[in-house]
């Protein structure tokens, strides 16, 4: 295992090229009915990297994430072709999708504080997998809330409703909940859309720490956020994966496709 190293400037350091592949996607095509949302995407995501996905709305970013944990199952209109390998195993043929989902934490664009106490929000996933011991749950709740930079704000009111927290707090609660799964992969879908800039920066700091323990897929429409966090970045546009490269290369103009440069420099999207 190769630990990711933070360089002095704080910019994301690359993951060594020989790091094990966590997720491999081959020729992935996603259709809603007859309309392709994503065509022929092939990419691999390495362990302990933050993999950024940027692109304007309707590029297929969210559909891409949904197929990774088989949430496409819930949408009968959604058709997926291609191979997705998680730790080398083809998840399209997986029977136990629940085990797959419990290994992948997901954070949505809009925070979802479940209408239960803050404590129960974070303890939900361990409880779903059968944990009952109060002391063990206490430890998990405190650790996950601490790591999501929320503990200090809520430690005195763990029994109040999670759904009544402010938007930014709810988003950190969502992250704490995702972390309580002890996920191998954390997928964030435009997490900062409903969060103030200060909270966003705090969450970004958290993510930089977390990548030592897990692989992070960061979908964002803030290109600078990808630059701050991601070691490699893919650019999606209208259902096409235009380019994948080292994030710094994309931002310093070393691009293979001129559309990438145009998007990053803000000429469209």
């Amino acid at each position, binding site marked *: 295992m190769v630990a990711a190293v933070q360089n002095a400037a704080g910019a994301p350091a690359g993951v060594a090229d020989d790091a094990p592949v966590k997720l491999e996607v081959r020729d992935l095509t996603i259709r809603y009915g007859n309309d392709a949302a994503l065509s022929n995407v092939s990419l691999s995501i390495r362990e302990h990297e933050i993999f950024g996905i940027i692109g304007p709305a309707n590029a297929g970013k969210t559909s891409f994430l949904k197929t990774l944990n088989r949430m496409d199952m819930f949408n009968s209109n959604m058709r997926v072709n291609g191979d997705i390998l998680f730790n080398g195993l083809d998840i399209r043929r997986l029977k136990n999708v629940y085990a797959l989902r419990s290994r992948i934490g997901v954070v949505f664009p809009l925070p979802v504080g479940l209408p239960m106490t803050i404590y129960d929000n974070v303890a939900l996933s361990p409880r779903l997998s059968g944990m009952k011991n109060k002391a063990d749950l206490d430890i998990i709740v405190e650790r996950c809330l601490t790591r999501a930079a929320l503990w200090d704000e809520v430690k005195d009111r763990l029994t109040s409703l999670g759904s*009544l927290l402010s938007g930014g707090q709810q988003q950190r609660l969502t992250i704490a909940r995702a972390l309580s799964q002890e996920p191998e992969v954390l997928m964030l879908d435009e997490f900062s859309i409903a969060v103030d800039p200060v909270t966003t920066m705090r969450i970004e700091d958290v993510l930089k720490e977390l990548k030592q323990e897990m692989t992070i897929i960061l979908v964002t429409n803030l290109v600078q956020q990808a630059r701050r966090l991601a070691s490699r970045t893919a650019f999606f546009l209208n259902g096409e994966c235009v380019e994948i490269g080292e994030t710094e290369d994309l931002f310093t103009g070393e691009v293979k496709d001129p559309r990438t440069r145009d998007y990053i420099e803000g000429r469209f999207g």
Partner: protein
Amino acid sequence: MFETSELNVHNQRVQRLYRTLFLMMTLLLIIPVLLILGTLIVKGGSVISIDFLFTSPTDGMTAGGLFPALFGTVWLVAVALLISVPLGIAAAIYLSEYAGENWFTRIINLAIINLAGVPSIVHALFGVGAFVLFFKFGTSILAASLTLAIMTLPVVIVATRESLTAVPHAFREACWNMGATRWQTIRRVVLPNAVSGILTGVILEVSRTSGETAPIMFTGAVFFTPFLPQSVFDQTMAMSLHLFVVSTQVPGVPEDLPYGVALVLIAMVLIMNSVSIAFRMYLRGKKKW
């Protein structure tokens, strides 16, 4: 820049007109309720006493109390609830949480709507045919309660489905994303937040069940019996039928007696409703998003 134009004046006048109109309509709604309650209290209040509630009718039902009927209605409603609430909630959960949108669910939906539209006397005849005769339950609490249960099933199903649908979809997705099964999601997230709505359906059912006369008069309720039911296979008196009997079928009943019976019936429903409403408000206080 804020001077009032001709149009502003007109708009505000129209707005006041509509507001008054809607207020009048609302007040109009309260009038019958107050009139009914008032009449019952004025005309029937005098017969209400502990004895009236806890003794049997005497003198060819022209005197005495209504205890067997009160007791019987409680039995009928309780057994009907025991049957229809689990059945209705289970069906609603299946339809709203599991079933896809296909011809099968469309047929079931159609059946539920039609069931809700069937007149109660038709339910009564069905109850006689199915439960009294075919299943050989005889005229009994069981047959009457089954008939009531089937009649009120759509109320429970529709109310439950609506309250399940009211739980935001994002909550389910968040749970599924964690690796929860559908049932885990339903039990831990969906149901706790739908309980108050489901309870509304049950309240409506209680009110309707305790007042229905037609479905029970051929299937389990009797004109008069000196015995209290010992099991669900016994016949029983019931408040609604008793009211019908003392108002129209027995000569020589003092004028205030039927009003007293009606008052007790209404009070019973109101008390049950208030308890449920209080419980619902308690639950709602705990849920917010």
